[in-house]
């Protein structure tokens, strides 16, 4: 089994003291920022991207993975203790977990979330290690038409299928695609939509857009609804440990959540909110005591948390194997790769195998570290929740502008950040999802590249996308996914806030 030797090498890479240190710092930083109320994992990754600018690629990407997992854990802690889910995928956790905390069972709620995330993350990483190389073997035979069709599927699922409104989702995507056009065309060297402004020639930076839409947009939105009142933090009372009954209620829920989360994440099927809500309703149906749900059922925390983590790992399958980001966080990870000139996809598995497998192995390590570091430190994390909003948002904005200036020390870049912040604010007010815009910006130019390559091969014949069975099928799926929400209105039961 080649996978196992590669994975063993990877674990060796991840266990190097330096890389271990990066993973640890990443997990701690990710939790630290992710736990702050209102900050989602994708924003955490965007804010912390500059911290990794000067590290070596392997260490930096490993740190990144730690940030990713840490931020998800932090987000669920916030959901449990102050009932403000940082992202839609934590809503289920907030419902049951917060009730548990108010009943004096905050410790077990945090523990089942942490252990569930560990179990789900470990199983899903094993799934990733098996599935990704298989997909890579298939992907080697893909033509540019297949890649283009895959990206079209991703566009549709990210923007149209699972949001509130197809029109608003597609609008957000189209704005991202528009921003992706700005700058010098890589194939011909011609400037597009730059209007002679030198700063626009390099194109729009994905970090600037993400930090603007998420951090600035959020800060402005919270400011415009600001009223002076303190958040109610539930103190963690009682034992941290789960009782035998808690374990019995949790372990099946973890496994079921993992089984729901991983495939839905691996298919580009619209982020983590779908599997978490599916897992929540599944646990309620299977429960012997459904009345417990809504009043602090531990299975209602265990299942969705596992599903959330498994689906986040699942989104790394298309990201690593095909270079296809299907969530805002995955788009930020891709941006992290790109700053080292690394292009995830089949090629990376052959050119940088030690890095890819080191990364996959570091997911195991990161998950374990999360468990070992975070449960004992829970008292420290709770203190972070007590930071007043005024210092919190002021600090976030300083850090956001620092990140943008560190990437590109120019006033124009900072102005763009503020403009994107105002756009993000308006999008939040008017209920437009922001994730499709980010995916559009990063995936749009890639899709265009494949599109033009396909037409080069076919000598300008546009029917090339329908002549190959795989790409034709994918385009049919994309059309179906675009039309399906109108046909099955029932899907709208799963809608959540896009993040």
């Amino acid at each position, binding site marked *: 089994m080649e996978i196992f030797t590669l994975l063993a090498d990877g674990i060796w890479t991840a266990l190097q003291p330096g890389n271990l240190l990066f993973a640890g710092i990443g997990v701690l930083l990710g939790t630290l920022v992710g736990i702050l109320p209102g900050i989602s994992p994708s924003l955490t990754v965007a804010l912390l991207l*500059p*911290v990794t*600018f*000067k590290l070596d690629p392997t260490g930096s990407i490993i740190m990144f993975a730690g940030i990713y997992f840490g931020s998800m854990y932090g987000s669920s802690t916030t959901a449990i203790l102050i009932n403000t889910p940082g992202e839609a995928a934590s809503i289920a956790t907030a419902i049951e977990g917060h009730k548990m905390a108010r009943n004096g069972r905050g410790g077990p709620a945090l523990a089942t979330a942490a252990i569930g995330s560990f179990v789900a993350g470990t199983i899903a990483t094993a799934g990733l290690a098996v599935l990704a190389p298989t997909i890579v073997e298939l992907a080697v035979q893909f033509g540019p038409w297949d890649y283009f069709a895959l990206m079209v599927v991703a566009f549709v699922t990210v923007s149209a299928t699972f949001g509130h409104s197809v*029109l608003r989702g*597609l*609008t957000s995507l*189209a*704005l991202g*695609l*528009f921003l992706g*056009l700005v700058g010098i*065309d890589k*194939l*011909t060297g*011609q400037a*597009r*939509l730059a209007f002679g402004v030198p700063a626009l020639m390099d194109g729009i930076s994905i970090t600037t857009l993400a930090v603007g839409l998420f951090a*600035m947009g959020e*800060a*402005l939105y919270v*400011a*415009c*609804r*600001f*009223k*002076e009142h303190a958040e109610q933090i539930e103190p963690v009372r009682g034992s941290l440990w789960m009782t035998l009954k808690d374990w019995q209620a949790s372990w099946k829920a973890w496994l079921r959540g993992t089984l729901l989360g991983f495939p839905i994440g691996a298919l580009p099927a619209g982020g983590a909110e779908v599997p978490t809500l599916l897992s929540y309703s599944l646990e309620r149906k299977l429960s012997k005591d459904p009345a417990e749900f809504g009043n602090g059922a531990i299975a209602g925390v265990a299942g969705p948390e596992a599903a959330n983590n498994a689906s986040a790992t699942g989104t790394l399958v298309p990201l690593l194997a095909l270079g296809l980001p299907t969530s805002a966080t995955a788009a930020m990870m891709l941006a992290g790769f790109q700053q080292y000139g690394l292009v995830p996809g089949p090629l990376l598995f052959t050119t940088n195998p030690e890095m890819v497998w080191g990364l996959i192995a570091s997911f195991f390590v990161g998950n374990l570290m999360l468990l070992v570091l975070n449960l004992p430190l829970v008292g420290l994390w709770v203190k972070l929740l007590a930071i*007043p*909003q*005024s*210092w919190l*948002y*002021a*600090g976030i*904005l*300083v*850090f956001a*502008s*620092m990140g943008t*200036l*560190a990437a590109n*020390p120019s*006033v124009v870049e*900072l102005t763009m950040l*503020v403009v994107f*912040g*105002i756009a993000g604010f*308006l999008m939040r*007010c*008017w209920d*437009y999802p922001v994730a499709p815009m980010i995916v559009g910006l990063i995936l*749009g130019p890639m899709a*265009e590249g494949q*599109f*033009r*390559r396909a*037409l*080069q091969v076919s*000598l*300008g014949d546009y029917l090339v996308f329908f002549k190959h069975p795989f790409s034709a099928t994918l385009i049919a799926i994309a059309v179906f996914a675009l039309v399906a929400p109108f046909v099955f209105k029932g899907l709208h039961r799963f809608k959540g806030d896009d993040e």
Partner: protein
Amino acid sequence: MTIADVHKVPAWRAPLVVGLVLLTLATLTLVDSFRVTTGTGPGVGPSVAMKLIGGLLGVLGAAHLVTAWGKRGNRKGIDADDVLNPASLAWVLGGLVGQIAVLAAGGGFIAGATLLFVCTACGFGRRLLSLGPVIGLALSVAVYVFFTKALSLTLPSGPLERLLFG
């Protein structure tokens, strides 16, 4: 645009504004696409994607206008939980614009970031002359030192940075 405009509005206002923005962007993209020359050789040039995306923006813009027309006469209720606070928003936006102005004038990162911090803290209910300036200055200096010295990134420097760090 003030907050009152965003919220206490007839329901058609948002789709109309978004629709007009989309149509403007569509026009920009399509006009610019005719300026870009198509390369020689097989395949398509850089203008095809511009035409496709411009077309998409145009269609979405038109759809927004149709939506706006369908909502004429409706009024959007204000969410009872939302206490709208234009003063806070103005403080935060003012801080951001102020930071840009400081940097454009060569004032350096620490001054700009401190200004942003203080304004934002004011927006969230702090008094101007309280702990805000102290925390803001300490944070900005710490961030500047950590990212320029420990991580050797470049941040804009002004008189204050040159005075403190040569």
